[in-house]
Protein backbone atom coordinates (compact mmCIF):
# COMPACT_ATOMS: atom_id res chain seq x y z
CA UNK A 1 0.00 0.00 0.00
CA UNK A 2 1.56 3.25 -1.03
CA UNK A 3 1.32 6.56 0.72
CA UNK A 4 -1.35 8.07 -1.49
CA UNK A 5 -3.56 5.03 -0.96
CA UNK A 6 -3.25 5.46 2.78
CA UNK A 7 -4.12 9.12 2.45
CA UNK A 8 -7.13 8.27 0.29
CA UNK A 9 -8.36 5.68 2.76
CA UNK A 10 -7.93 8.00 5.72
CA UNK A 11 -9.67 10.74 3.79
CA UNK A 12 -12.63 8.47 3.17
CA UNK A 13 -12.55 7.31 6.78
CA UNK A 14 -12.86 10.92 7.94
CA UNK A 15 -15.95 11.47 5.85
CA UNK A 16 -17.53 8.22 6.91
CA UNK A 17 -16.65 8.94 10.52
CA UNK A 18 -18.37 12.32 10.62
CA UNK A 19 -22.02 11.26 10.88
CA UNK A 20 -21.06 8.49 13.28
CA UNK A 21 -19.10 10.88 15.44
CA UNK A 22 -21.85 13.47 15.60
CA UNK A 23 -24.45 10.86 16.43
CA UNK A 24 -22.13 9.25 18.93
CA UNK A 25 -21.54 12.55 20.73
CA UNK A 26 -25.28 13.15 20.59
CA UNK A 27 -25.84 9.86 22.34
CA UNK A 28 -23.07 10.72 24.76
CA UNK A 29 -24.85 13.82 26.02
CA UNK A 30 -28.14 12.04 26.35
CA UNK A 31 -26.83 8.90 27.99
CA UNK A 32 -24.42 10.73 30.23
CA UNK A 33 -27.51 12.47 31.58
CA UNK A 34 -29.17 9.13 32.15
CA UNK A 35 -31.46 9.02 29.14
CA UNK A 36 -30.71 6.09 26.86
CA UNK A 37 -31.30 6.73 23.25
CA UNK A 38 -31.61 4.08 20.58
CA UNK A 39 -33.47 6.63 18.50
CA UNK A 40 -30.29 8.22 17.11
CA UNK A 41 -31.01 6.54 13.79
CA UNK A 42 -34.49 8.00 13.56
CA UNK A 43 -33.39 11.49 14.53
CA UNK A 44 -30.64 11.50 11.95
CA UNK A 45 -33.04 10.27 9.32
CA UNK A 46 -35.59 12.94 10.14
CA UNK A 47 -32.89 15.59 10.09
CA UNK A 48 -31.58 14.34 6.78
CA UNK A 49 -35.05 14.69 5.35
CA UNK A 50 -35.94 18.09 6.75
CA UNK A 51 -32.55 19.54 5.92
CA UNK A 52 -32.61 18.29 2.35
CA UNK A 53 -36.18 19.48 1.86
CA UNK A 54 -35.60 22.97 3.18
CA UNK A 55 -32.26 23.28 1.45
CA UNK A 56 -33.89 22.32 -1.81
CA UNK A 57 -36.85 24.65 -1.41
CA UNK A 58 -34.83 27.65 -0.24
CA UNK A 59 -31.64 26.89 -2.08
CA UNK A 60 -29.81 27.71 1.13
CA UNK A 61 -27.97 24.95 2.89
CA UNK A 62 -27.71 26.87 6.15
CA UNK A 63 -31.45 27.07 6.37
CA UNK A 64 -31.39 23.39 5.57
CA UNK A 65 -29.07 22.77 8.48
CA UNK A 66 -31.38 24.67 10.80
CA UNK A 67 -34.33 22.68 9.52
CA UNK A 68 -32.41 19.48 10.08
CA UNK A 69 -31.75 20.47 13.65
CA UNK A 70 -35.39 21.41 14.10
CA UNK A 71 -36.60 18.10 12.70
CA UNK A 72 -34.33 16.16 14.99
CA UNK A 73 -35.23 18.34 17.96
CA UNK A 74 -38.87 17.58 17.44
CA UNK A 75 -38.20 13.89 17.90
CA UNK A 76 -35.96 14.68 20.87
CA UNK A 77 -38.85 16.46 22.46
CA UNK A 78 -41.01 13.37 22.05
CA UNK A 79 -38.25 11.28 23.58
CA UNK A 80 -37.97 13.75 26.44
CA UNK A 81 -41.69 13.73 27.06
CA UNK A 82 -41.80 9.97 27.08
CA UNK A 83 -38.71 9.28 29.12
CA UNK A 84 -38.42 12.32 31.39
CA UNK A 85 -41.85 13.79 31.95
CA UNK A 86 -43.87 10.61 31.72
CA UNK A 87 -41.16 8.27 32.99
CA UNK A 88 -41.76 5.87 30.16
CA UNK A 89 -39.50 3.15 28.89
CA UNK A 90 -36.60 4.80 27.11
CA UNK A 91 -35.91 1.86 24.87
CA UNK A 92 -39.48 1.68 23.62
CA UNK A 93 -39.52 5.38 23.01
CA UNK A 94 -36.34 5.06 20.95
CA UNK A 95 -37.74 2.21 18.90
CA UNK A 96 -40.91 4.21 18.27
CA UNK A 97 -38.89 7.22 17.14
CA UNK A 98 -36.98 5.12 14.63
CA UNK A 99 -40.22 3.83 13.17
CA UNK A 100 -41.77 7.25 13.20
CA UNK A 101 -38.90 8.79 11.28
CA UNK A 102 -38.78 5.95 8.76
CA UNK A 103 -42.48 6.42 8.04
CA UNK A 104 -42.87 10.17 8.30
CA UNK A 105 -39.93 11.07 6.09
CA UNK A 106 -41.29 9.06 3.20
CA UNK A 107 -44.88 10.09 3.82
CA UNK A 108 -44.03 13.78 3.95
CA UNK A 109 -41.59 13.52 1.08
CA UNK A 110 -44.20 11.87 -1.05
CA UNK A 111 -46.71 14.56 -0.13
CA UNK A 112 -44.32 17.41 -0.86
CA UNK A 113 -42.16 16.21 -3.72
CA UNK A 114 -44.10 13.26 -5.07
CA UNK A 115 -40.92 11.27 -5.34
CA UNK A 116 -41.77 8.69 -2.70
CA UNK A 117 -39.49 9.88 -0.01
CA UNK A 118 -36.73 11.17 -2.21
CA UNK A 119 -36.00 14.83 -2.44
CA UNK A 120 -34.76 16.28 -5.72
CA UNK A 121 -31.00 16.48 -5.98
CA UNK A 122 -29.42 19.50 -4.36
CA UNK A 123 -27.19 21.80 -6.25
CA UNK A 124 -24.97 24.80 -5.64
CA UNK A 125 -25.81 26.70 -2.48
CA UNK A 126 -28.23 24.03 -1.38
CA UNK A 127 -25.42 21.76 -0.27
CA UNK A 128 -22.24 22.05 1.71
CA UNK A 129 -19.23 22.26 -0.47
CA UNK A 130 -15.71 21.26 0.29
CA UNK A 131 -13.57 23.88 1.95
CA UNK A 132 -9.99 24.36 0.89
CA UNK A 133 -7.93 25.36 3.89
CA UNK A 134 -5.38 28.17 3.51
CA UNK A 135 -2.11 27.20 1.81
CA UNK A 136 -3.54 23.83 0.85
CA UNK A 137 -2.54 24.37 -2.73
CA UNK A 138 0.87 25.81 -2.13
CA UNK A 139 1.78 23.09 0.35
CA UNK A 140 0.62 20.28 -1.89
CA UNK A 141 4.05 19.40 -3.17
CA UNK A 142 5.85 19.33 0.14
CA UNK A 143 6.68 15.68 0.77
CA UNK A 144 4.60 13.80 3.35
CA UNK A 145 3.20 16.85 5.13
CA UNK A 146 1.90 18.27 1.87
CA UNK A 147 -0.48 15.49 0.96
CA UNK A 148 -1.50 15.06 4.58
CA UNK A 149 -2.45 18.68 4.86
CA UNK A 150 -3.88 19.40 1.45
CA UNK A 151 -5.57 16.09 0.70
CA UNK A 152 -6.43 14.64 4.08
CA UNK A 153 -6.98 17.63 6.30
CA UNK A 154 -8.12 20.18 3.76
CA UNK A 155 -11.01 19.72 1.38
CA UNK A 156 -13.86 18.56 3.55
CA UNK A 157 -17.21 20.18 4.10
CA UNK A 158 -17.47 22.43 7.11
CA UNK A 159 -19.51 19.89 9.05
CA UNK A 160 -16.58 17.50 9.12
CA UNK A 161 -14.53 20.12 10.96
CA UNK A 162 -17.49 20.93 13.15
CA UNK A 163 -17.79 17.29 14.11
CA UNK A 164 -14.13 16.97 14.98
CA UNK A 165 -14.18 20.22 16.94
CA UNK A 166 -17.17 18.93 18.87
CA UNK A 167 -14.88 16.40 20.52
CA UNK A 168 -12.68 18.83 22.48
CA UNK A 169 -15.71 21.00 22.98
CA UNK A 170 -17.66 18.15 24.47
CA UNK A 171 -14.72 17.20 26.63
CA UNK A 172 -14.47 20.77 27.83
CA UNK A 173 -18.19 21.10 28.49
CA UNK A 174 -18.33 17.80 30.28
CA UNK A 175 -15.30 18.19 32.51
CA UNK A 176 -14.70 21.90 32.80
CA UNK A 177 -18.07 23.54 33.13
CA UNK A 178 -20.81 23.67 35.71
CA UNK A 179 -23.24 22.38 33.14
CA UNK A 180 -21.06 19.36 32.47
CA UNK A 181 -20.67 18.58 36.13
CA UNK A 182 -24.41 18.62 36.64
CA UNK A 183 -24.98 16.66 33.46
CA UNK A 184 -22.67 13.88 34.53
CA UNK A 185 -24.12 13.90 38.02
CA UNK A 186 -27.65 13.57 36.76
CA UNK A 187 -26.72 10.45 34.86
CA UNK A 188 -24.97 8.91 37.81
CA UNK A 189 -27.24 9.84 40.68
CA UNK A 190 -30.13 12.15 39.88
CA UNK A 191 -31.13 12.33 43.53
CA UNK A 192 -27.82 14.03 44.31
CA UNK A 193 -28.59 16.71 41.77
CA UNK A 194 -32.13 17.08 42.97
CA UNK A 195 -31.14 17.48 46.60
CA UNK A 196 -28.49 19.96 45.56
CA UNK A 197 -31.30 22.16 44.36
CA UNK A 198 -30.92 21.59 40.64
CA UNK A 199 -33.82 20.43 38.53
CA UNK A 200 -33.26 16.93 37.20
CA UNK A 201 -35.95 17.43 34.62
CA UNK A 202 -34.38 20.57 33.25
CA UNK A 203 -30.91 19.01 33.07
CA UNK A 204 -32.21 15.96 31.27
CA UNK A 205 -34.22 17.98 28.81
CA UNK A 206 -31.15 20.07 28.09
CA UNK A 207 -29.13 16.93 27.42
CA UNK A 208 -31.80 15.45 25.21
CA UNK A 209 -32.00 18.73 23.31
CA UNK A 210 -28.24 18.80 22.71
CA UNK A 211 -28.56 15.25 21.51
CA UNK A 212 -31.20 16.46 19.09
CA UNK A 213 -29.02 19.28 17.81
CA UNK A 214 -26.06 16.98 17.17
CA UNK A 215 -28.22 14.34 15.50
CA UNK A 216 -29.65 17.15 13.43
CA UNK A 217 -26.18 18.14 12.25
CA UNK A 218 -25.37 14.50 11.57
CA UNK A 219 -28.49 14.07 9.47
CA UNK A 220 -27.89 17.33 7.63
CA UNK A 221 -24.37 16.17 6.88
CA UNK A 222 -25.68 12.94 5.37
CA UNK A 223 -28.16 14.68 3.10
CA UNK A 224 -26.48 17.97 2.30
CA UNK A 225 -22.82 17.40 3.03
CA UNK A 226 -21.62 14.02 1.93
CA UNK A 227 -24.41 13.46 -0.58
CA UNK A 228 -26.85 15.76 -2.31
CA UNK A 229 -30.37 15.01 -1.30
CA UNK A 230 -32.46 12.67 0.75
CA UNK A 231 -33.13 9.06 -0.08
CA UNK A 232 -35.44 7.03 2.12
CA UNK A 233 -33.72 5.06 4.87
CA UNK A 234 -30.47 6.72 3.89
CA UNK A 235 -29.04 6.52 7.40
CA UNK A 236 -28.64 2.80 6.66
CA UNK A 237 -28.07 1.71 10.25
CA UNK A 238 -25.50 4.39 11.11
CA UNK A 239 -27.42 5.31 14.25
CA UNK A 240 -26.93 1.80 15.57
CA UNK A 241 -23.27 1.85 14.69
CA UNK A 242 -22.94 5.16 16.53
CA UNK A 243 -24.55 3.55 19.53
CA UNK A 244 -22.09 0.71 19.34
CA UNK A 245 -19.25 3.22 19.12
CA UNK A 246 -20.61 5.03 22.17
CA UNK A 247 -20.50 1.87 24.26
CA UNK A 248 -17.13 1.06 22.73
CA UNK A 249 -15.91 4.49 23.85
CA UNK A 250 -17.36 3.92 27.30
CA UNK A 251 -19.30 7.17 27.07
CA UNK A 252 -16.21 9.40 26.80
CA UNK A 253 -15.55 12.03 24.12
CA UNK A 254 -11.98 11.31 23.00
CA UNK A 255 -12.49 7.57 22.83
CA UNK A 256 -15.68 8.35 20.89
CA UNK A 257 -13.54 10.03 18.27
CA UNK A 258 -11.28 7.03 18.22
CA UNK A 259 -14.11 4.53 18.03
CA UNK A 260 -15.98 6.26 15.23
CA UNK A 261 -12.76 6.81 13.34
CA UNK A 262 -12.10 3.12 13.64
CA UNK A 263 -15.51 2.30 12.21
CA UNK A 264 -14.97 4.80 9.41
CA UNK A 265 -11.56 3.37 8.74
CA UNK A 266 -12.76 -0.20 8.60
CA UNK A 267 -15.50 0.75 6.17
CA UNK A 268 -13.06 2.72 4.06
CA UNK A 269 -10.68 -0.20 3.97
CA UNK A 270 -13.37 -2.62 2.95
CA UNK A 271 -14.47 -0.16 0.27
CA UNK A 272 -10.95 0.05 -1.03
CA UNK A 273 -10.33 -3.68 -1.08
CA UNK A 274 -13.67 -5.17 -2.08
CA UNK A 275 -12.30 -8.45 -3.35
CA UNK A 276 -9.36 -9.57 -1.38
CA UNK A 277 -7.42 -12.04 -3.49
CA UNK A 278 -5.52 -14.33 -1.20
CA UNK A 279 -4.00 -16.31 -4.06
CA UNK A 280 -5.69 -19.62 -3.42
CA UNK A 281 -9.12 -18.09 -2.90
CA UNK A 282 -10.83 -14.78 -3.55
CA UNK A 283 -12.68 -13.60 -0.50
CA UNK A 284 -16.29 -12.92 -1.53
CA UNK A 285 -17.60 -9.37 -1.39
CA UNK A 286 -20.03 -10.32 1.36
CA UNK A 287 -17.18 -11.14 3.63
CA UNK A 288 -15.45 -7.87 2.93
CA UNK A 289 -18.71 -6.03 3.51
CA UNK A 290 -19.13 -7.76 6.83
CA UNK A 291 -15.50 -7.33 7.81
CA UNK A 292 -15.94 -4.08 9.78
CA UNK A 293 -18.54 -5.78 11.93
CA UNK A 294 -16.47 -8.88 12.42
CA UNK A 295 -13.46 -6.80 13.37
CA UNK A 296 -15.55 -4.81 15.81
CA UNK A 297 -16.55 -7.97 17.60
CA UNK A 298 -12.96 -9.17 17.70
CA UNK A 299 -11.64 -5.86 19.00
CA UNK A 300 -14.39 -5.73 21.55
CA UNK A 301 -13.68 -9.22 22.76
CA UNK A 302 -9.96 -8.79 22.77
CA UNK A 303 -9.13 -5.31 23.85
CA UNK A 304 -12.03 -3.51 25.41
CA UNK A 305 -13.02 -4.44 28.90
CA UNK A 306 -16.42 -4.22 30.45
CA UNK A 307 -18.25 -1.04 29.57
CA UNK A 308 -20.12 0.34 32.56
CA UNK A 309 -22.90 2.70 31.53
CA UNK A 310 -23.86 5.76 33.58
CA UNK A 311 -25.36 4.33 36.73
CA UNK A 312 -28.75 5.98 36.44
CA UNK A 313 -28.97 5.32 32.73
CA UNK A 314 -32.19 3.97 31.35
CA UNK A 315 -34.13 4.57 34.51
CA UNK A 316 -36.60 7.39 34.86
CA UNK A 317 -36.02 9.51 37.93
CA UNK A 318 -38.79 8.69 40.37
CA UNK A 319 -39.02 10.33 43.74
CA UNK A 320 -42.40 9.15 44.79
CA UNK A 321 -43.19 5.60 43.85
Amino acid at each position, binding site marked *: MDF*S*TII*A*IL*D*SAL*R*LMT*PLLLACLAGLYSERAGVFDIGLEGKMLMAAFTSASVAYVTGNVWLGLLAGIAGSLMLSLIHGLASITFRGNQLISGVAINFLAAGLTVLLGQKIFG*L*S*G*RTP*SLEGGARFNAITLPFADSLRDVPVIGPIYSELISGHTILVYVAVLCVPLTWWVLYRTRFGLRLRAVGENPASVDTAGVSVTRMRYAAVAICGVLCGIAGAY*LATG*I*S*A*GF*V*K*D*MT*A*GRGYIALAALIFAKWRPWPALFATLLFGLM*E*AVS*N*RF*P*NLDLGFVTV*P*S*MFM*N*ALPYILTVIILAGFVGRAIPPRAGGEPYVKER
Partner: protein
Amino acid sequence: DPALIFDLGGKFDKSFNEAAYVGAERWKAETGGTYKELEMQSEAQREQALRRLAETGANPIVMTGFAFGEVLGKIAPDYPDTKFVIIDMVVEQPNVQSVVFAEPEGSYLAGVMAAKASKSGTVSFVGGMDVPLIHKFECGYVQGVKATNPDAKVLINYTGTTPTAWNDPVKGGELVKAQISQGSDVVYAAAGGTGIGVLQAAADANILSIGVDSNQNHLHPGKVLTSMVKGVDNSVYDAFKAGADVAPGIKVMDLASGGVSVAMDDNNKPLVTPDMQAAVDAATKGIIDGTIKVHDYMTDNTCPVQ
Protein backbone atom coordinates in the same frame (compact mmCIF):
# COMPACT_ATOMS: atom_id res chain seq x y z
CA ASP B 1 -58.35 -2.57 -15.33
CA PRO B 2 -54.72 -3.50 -15.48
CA ALA B 3 -52.63 -3.58 -12.34
CA LEU B 4 -48.99 -3.03 -11.56
CA ILE B 5 -47.11 -4.41 -8.59
CA PHE B 6 -43.79 -2.94 -7.62
CA ASP B 7 -41.09 -4.91 -5.92
CA LEU B 8 -39.73 -4.15 -2.45
CA GLY B 9 -37.57 -1.26 -3.62
CA GLY B 10 -40.68 0.87 -4.03
CA LYS B 11 -41.96 2.66 -7.03
CA PHE B 12 -39.66 5.67 -7.02
CA ASP B 13 -36.35 3.89 -6.91
CA LYS B 14 -35.15 6.18 -9.70
CA SER B 15 -34.49 3.04 -11.55
CA PHE B 16 -36.19 -0.21 -12.35
CA ASN B 17 -39.52 0.16 -10.57
CA GLU B 18 -39.76 3.75 -11.56
CA ALA B 19 -39.38 2.83 -15.21
CA ALA B 20 -42.37 0.55 -14.85
CA TYR B 21 -44.29 3.38 -13.25
CA VAL B 22 -43.40 5.70 -16.10
CA GLY B 23 -44.72 3.18 -18.60
CA ALA B 24 -47.97 2.82 -16.74
CA GLU B 25 -48.39 6.57 -16.46
CA ARG B 26 -47.78 6.96 -20.16
CA TRP B 27 -50.51 4.46 -20.85
CA LYS B 28 -52.79 6.32 -18.48
CA ALA B 29 -52.08 9.65 -20.11
CA GLU B 30 -52.64 8.30 -23.58
CA THR B 31 -55.73 6.21 -23.00
CA GLY B 32 -57.25 7.95 -20.00
CA GLY B 33 -57.65 4.57 -18.36
CA THR B 34 -57.07 3.77 -14.71
CA TYR B 35 -54.92 1.11 -13.18
CA LYS B 36 -54.28 -0.31 -9.78
CA GLU B 37 -50.85 -0.19 -8.25
CA LEU B 38 -49.33 -1.78 -5.23
CA GLU B 39 -46.00 -1.63 -3.48
CA MET B 40 -44.69 -4.64 -1.66
CA GLN B 41 -43.89 -4.37 1.98
CA SER B 42 -43.04 -7.91 2.85
CA GLU B 43 -42.30 -11.21 1.21
CA ALA B 44 -45.54 -12.83 2.28
CA GLN B 45 -47.52 -10.11 0.59
CA ARG B 46 -46.46 -11.18 -2.88
CA GLU B 47 -48.85 -14.06 -3.11
CA GLN B 48 -51.51 -12.14 -1.30
CA ALA B 49 -51.23 -9.18 -3.63
CA LEU B 50 -51.38 -11.33 -6.74
CA ARG B 51 -54.40 -13.21 -5.53
CA ARG B 52 -56.22 -10.14 -4.33
CA LEU B 53 -55.70 -8.35 -7.60
CA ALA B 54 -56.65 -11.40 -9.64
CA GLU B 55 -59.78 -11.89 -7.59
CA THR B 56 -60.88 -8.31 -8.06
CA GLY B 57 -60.66 -8.84 -11.81
CA ALA B 58 -57.55 -6.88 -12.62
CA ASN B 59 -56.22 -7.95 -16.00
CA PRO B 60 -53.43 -8.01 -16.95
CA ILE B 61 -51.40 -7.95 -13.77
CA VAL B 62 -47.87 -6.74 -14.32
CA MET B 63 -45.17 -7.24 -11.73
CA THR B 64 -41.60 -6.12 -11.59
CA GLY B 65 -38.78 -8.21 -10.28
CA PHE B 66 -37.52 -11.76 -10.25
CA ALA B 67 -38.70 -12.25 -6.71
CA PHE B 68 -42.24 -12.77 -7.93
CA GLY B 69 -41.26 -15.71 -10.10
CA GLU B 70 -41.73 -18.49 -7.60
CA VAL B 71 -45.06 -17.24 -6.31
CA LEU B 72 -46.44 -16.52 -9.75
CA GLY B 73 -45.59 -20.02 -10.90
CA LYS B 74 -47.63 -21.29 -7.99
CA ILE B 75 -50.73 -19.16 -8.32
CA ALA B 76 -51.05 -18.54 -12.06
CA PRO B 77 -52.86 -21.85 -12.66
CA ASP B 78 -55.52 -20.80 -10.12
CA TYR B 79 -56.54 -17.87 -12.32
CA PRO B 80 -56.52 -19.16 -15.87
CA ASP B 81 -58.56 -16.22 -17.13
CA THR B 82 -56.17 -13.62 -15.84
CA LYS B 83 -53.06 -12.65 -17.73
CA PHE B 84 -49.87 -12.02 -15.82
CA VAL B 85 -46.78 -10.25 -16.98
CA ILE B 86 -43.58 -10.71 -15.06
CA ILE B 87 -40.52 -8.66 -15.74
CA ASP B 88 -37.00 -10.00 -15.27
CA MET B 89 -37.98 -13.62 -14.79
CA VAL B 90 -39.22 -16.56 -16.81
CA VAL B 91 -42.34 -18.28 -15.55
CA GLU B 92 -43.65 -20.96 -17.81
CA GLN B 93 -47.40 -20.89 -17.51
CA PRO B 94 -49.97 -20.57 -20.26
CA ASN B 95 -51.30 -17.27 -18.96
CA VAL B 96 -47.99 -15.64 -18.18
CA GLN B 97 -45.90 -13.37 -20.30
CA SER B 98 -42.29 -13.33 -19.15
CA VAL B 99 -40.33 -10.28 -20.14
CA VAL B 100 -36.59 -10.67 -19.84
CA PHE B 101 -34.03 -8.11 -20.75
CA ALA B 102 -30.65 -8.67 -22.24
CA GLU B 103 -28.86 -6.64 -19.61
CA PRO B 104 -25.49 -8.04 -20.63
CA GLU B 105 -25.91 -6.63 -24.13
CA GLY B 106 -26.80 -3.16 -22.95
CA SER B 107 -24.08 -3.26 -20.35
CA TYR B 108 -21.64 -4.36 -23.00
CA LEU B 109 -22.35 -1.17 -24.92
CA ALA B 110 -21.94 0.81 -21.73
CA GLY B 111 -18.59 -0.89 -21.30
CA VAL B 112 -17.57 0.04 -24.83
CA MET B 113 -18.40 3.67 -24.17
CA ALA B 114 -16.65 3.63 -20.83
CA ALA B 115 -13.48 2.23 -22.33
CA LYS B 116 -13.58 4.82 -25.09
CA ALA B 117 -14.19 7.67 -22.67
CA SER B 118 -11.62 6.63 -20.13
CA LYS B 119 -8.34 8.43 -20.28
CA SER B 120 -6.75 6.55 -17.44
CA GLY B 121 -7.56 3.10 -18.70
CA THR B 122 -9.30 2.32 -15.42
CA VAL B 123 -13.07 2.22 -15.16
CA SER B 124 -15.32 0.94 -12.42
CA PHE B 125 -18.63 -0.57 -11.43
CA VAL B 126 -20.80 -0.18 -8.31
CA GLY B 127 -23.40 -2.83 -7.67
CA GLY B 128 -26.08 -2.74 -5.01
CA MET B 129 -26.06 -6.19 -3.61
CA ASP B 130 -23.93 -9.10 -4.66
CA VAL B 131 -26.75 -11.00 -6.39
CA PRO B 132 -26.84 -12.77 -9.79
CA LEU B 133 -28.91 -10.10 -11.52
CA ILE B 134 -26.31 -7.46 -10.77
CA HIS B 135 -23.53 -9.79 -11.85
CA LYS B 136 -25.24 -9.84 -15.25
CA PHE B 137 -24.73 -6.10 -15.52
CA GLU B 138 -21.22 -6.31 -14.24
CA CYS B 139 -20.16 -9.11 -16.53
CA GLY B 140 -21.60 -7.52 -19.66
CA TYR B 141 -19.91 -4.26 -18.78
CA VAL B 142 -16.54 -5.84 -18.22
CA GLN B 143 -16.79 -7.67 -21.52
CA GLY B 144 -17.50 -4.42 -23.34
CA VAL B 145 -14.61 -2.67 -21.66
CA LYS B 146 -12.14 -5.44 -22.32
CA ALA B 147 -13.25 -5.85 -25.93
CA THR B 148 -12.54 -2.20 -26.53
CA ASN B 149 -9.40 -1.88 -24.47
CA PRO B 150 -7.92 -5.22 -23.41
CA ASP B 151 -5.52 -3.50 -21.04
CA ALA B 152 -8.20 -1.62 -19.21
CA LYS B 153 -8.71 -2.25 -15.53
CA VAL B 154 -12.21 -2.59 -14.10
CA LEU B 155 -12.75 -1.95 -10.40
CA ILE B 156 -15.78 -3.58 -8.88
CA ASN B 157 -17.58 -2.79 -5.64
CA TYR B 158 -20.77 -4.03 -4.06
CA THR B 159 -22.52 -1.82 -1.55
CA GLY B 160 -23.70 -4.24 1.08
CA THR B 161 -25.61 -7.28 2.14
CA THR B 162 -28.72 -5.85 3.73
CA PRO B 163 -31.68 -4.22 2.00
CA THR B 164 -30.22 -0.82 2.89
CA ALA B 165 -27.57 -1.53 0.26
CA TRP B 166 -30.06 -0.22 -2.30
CA ASN B 167 -30.67 3.01 -0.39
CA ASP B 168 -27.28 4.16 0.74
CA PRO B 169 -26.13 7.08 -1.42
CA VAL B 170 -23.50 7.95 1.16
CA LYS B 171 -21.78 4.65 0.78
CA GLY B 172 -22.27 4.77 -2.97
CA GLY B 173 -20.44 8.08 -3.04
CA GLU B 174 -17.60 6.76 -0.92
CA LEU B 175 -17.19 3.72 -3.13
CA VAL B 176 -16.79 5.96 -6.16
CA LYS B 177 -14.26 8.09 -4.36
CA ALA B 178 -12.29 5.00 -3.47
CA GLN B 179 -12.42 3.92 -7.10
CA ILE B 180 -11.36 7.36 -8.29
CA SER B 181 -8.37 7.23 -6.00
CA GLN B 182 -7.40 4.06 -7.82
CA GLY B 183 -7.61 5.84 -11.13
CA SER B 184 -11.12 5.18 -12.34
CA ASP B 185 -12.60 7.91 -14.48
CA VAL B 186 -15.82 6.25 -15.60
CA VAL B 187 -18.19 4.51 -13.20
CA TYR B 188 -21.21 2.39 -13.98
CA ALA B 189 -23.78 2.10 -11.19
CA ALA B 190 -26.36 -0.65 -10.91
CA ALA B 191 -27.44 -0.01 -7.36
CA GLY B 192 -30.91 1.57 -7.11
CA GLY B 193 -31.05 4.54 -4.74
CA THR B 194 -27.40 4.05 -3.95
CA GLY B 195 -26.70 4.85 -7.58
CA ILE B 196 -27.91 8.40 -7.00
CA GLY B 197 -24.99 8.88 -4.67
CA VAL B 198 -22.66 7.27 -7.17
CA LEU B 199 -23.66 9.61 -9.97
CA GLN B 200 -23.51 12.58 -7.65
CA ALA B 201 -20.04 11.79 -6.36
CA ALA B 202 -18.82 11.16 -9.89
CA ALA B 203 -20.20 14.48 -11.05
CA ASP B 204 -18.64 16.25 -8.06
CA ALA B 205 -15.27 14.71 -8.82
CA ASN B 206 -15.63 15.53 -12.48
CA ILE B 207 -15.50 12.03 -13.75
CA LEU B 208 -18.08 10.33 -15.93
CA SER B 209 -20.79 8.02 -14.76
CA ILE B 210 -23.22 5.66 -16.39
CA GLY B 211 -26.77 5.39 -15.16
CA VAL B 212 -28.96 2.35 -15.22
CA ASP B 213 -32.48 1.12 -15.97
CA SER B 214 -34.05 4.50 -16.72
CA ASN B 215 -32.40 7.27 -18.66
CA GLN B 216 -30.50 9.11 -15.94
CA ASN B 217 -28.51 11.36 -18.25
CA HIS B 218 -30.43 14.42 -17.13
CA LEU B 219 -29.42 14.03 -13.48
CA HIS B 220 -26.06 15.65 -14.11
CA PRO B 221 -26.08 16.95 -17.67
CA GLY B 222 -22.72 16.67 -19.33
CA LYS B 223 -21.41 14.38 -16.61
CA VAL B 224 -23.41 11.25 -17.15
CA LEU B 225 -21.81 9.48 -20.07
CA THR B 226 -24.92 7.48 -20.85
CA SER B 227 -27.51 5.27 -19.21
CA MET B 228 -28.05 1.62 -19.84
CA VAL B 229 -31.77 1.83 -20.40
CA LYS B 230 -33.97 -1.19 -19.91
CA GLY B 231 -37.25 -0.66 -21.71
CA VAL B 232 -39.27 -1.64 -18.71
CA ASP B 233 -41.55 1.29 -19.35
CA ASN B 234 -42.26 0.07 -22.87
CA SER B 235 -42.96 -3.42 -21.66
CA VAL B 236 -45.44 -2.19 -19.10
CA TYR B 237 -46.96 0.19 -21.61
CA ASP B 238 -47.29 -2.60 -24.17
CA ALA B 239 -48.80 -4.97 -21.67
CA PHE B 240 -51.33 -2.41 -20.47
CA LYS B 241 -52.18 -1.53 -24.04
CA ALA B 242 -52.72 -5.15 -25.03
CA GLY B 243 -54.97 -5.53 -22.01
CA ALA B 244 -56.41 -8.98 -21.58
CA ASP B 245 -54.92 -9.99 -24.90
CA VAL B 246 -51.34 -9.99 -23.71
CA ALA B 247 -49.54 -12.76 -25.51
CA PRO B 248 -48.23 -15.41 -23.15
CA GLY B 249 -44.73 -16.70 -23.59
CA ILE B 250 -41.26 -15.36 -23.23
CA LYS B 251 -40.52 -11.93 -24.56
CA VAL B 252 -36.82 -11.29 -24.87
CA MET B 253 -36.03 -7.62 -24.84
CA ASP B 254 -32.59 -7.31 -26.35
CA LEU B 255 -30.62 -4.90 -28.40
CA ALA B 256 -32.20 -6.09 -31.59
CA SER B 257 -35.72 -5.46 -30.36
CA GLY B 258 -34.73 -2.17 -28.79
CA GLY B 259 -35.47 -3.58 -25.35
CA VAL B 260 -32.13 -2.43 -24.03
CA SER B 261 -30.04 0.46 -25.26
CA VAL B 262 -27.59 3.11 -24.26
CA ALA B 263 -29.30 6.46 -23.95
CA MET B 264 -28.19 9.17 -26.31
CA ASP B 265 -29.75 12.58 -25.84
CA ASP B 266 -28.89 16.24 -25.58
CA ASN B 267 -27.52 15.82 -22.10
CA ASN B 268 -24.70 13.55 -23.11
CA LYS B 269 -24.26 14.68 -26.69
CA PRO B 270 -21.01 16.60 -26.00
CA LEU B 271 -19.53 13.52 -24.36
CA VAL B 272 -20.11 11.12 -27.21
CA THR B 273 -17.28 11.47 -29.66
CA PRO B 274 -17.68 10.25 -33.19
CA ASP B 275 -15.13 7.56 -32.46
CA MET B 276 -17.17 6.40 -29.51
CA GLN B 277 -20.37 6.50 -31.49
CA ALA B 278 -18.73 4.42 -34.19
CA ALA B 279 -17.58 1.86 -31.66
CA VAL B 280 -21.06 1.64 -30.18
CA ASP B 281 -22.60 1.24 -33.60
CA ALA B 282 -20.12 -1.46 -34.50
CA ALA B 283 -20.74 -3.34 -31.28
CA THR B 284 -24.47 -3.04 -31.69
CA LYS B 285 -24.26 -4.43 -35.14
CA GLY B 286 -21.99 -7.23 -34.02
CA ILE B 287 -24.26 -8.23 -31.22
CA ILE B 288 -27.35 -8.16 -33.38
CA ASP B 289 -25.80 -10.19 -36.17
CA GLY B 290 -24.21 -12.59 -33.73
CA THR B 291 -20.59 -11.91 -34.49
CA ILE B 292 -20.18 -10.63 -30.97
CA LYS B 293 -21.38 -13.04 -28.34
CA VAL B 294 -22.07 -11.42 -25.01
CA HIS B 295 -21.86 -13.98 -22.28
CA ASP B 296 -24.71 -14.05 -19.78
CA TYR B 297 -23.34 -14.55 -16.28
CA MET B 298 -26.47 -16.35 -15.17
CA THR B 299 -26.07 -19.25 -17.56
CA ASP B 300 -23.08 -20.67 -15.76
CA ASN B 301 -22.38 -18.29 -12.90
CA THR B 302 -19.07 -17.26 -14.34
CA CYS B 303 -17.76 -14.39 -16.33
CA PRO B 304 -15.21 -15.02 -19.07
CA VAL B 305 -13.27 -11.86 -18.36
CA GLN B 306 -12.35 -10.27 -15.09
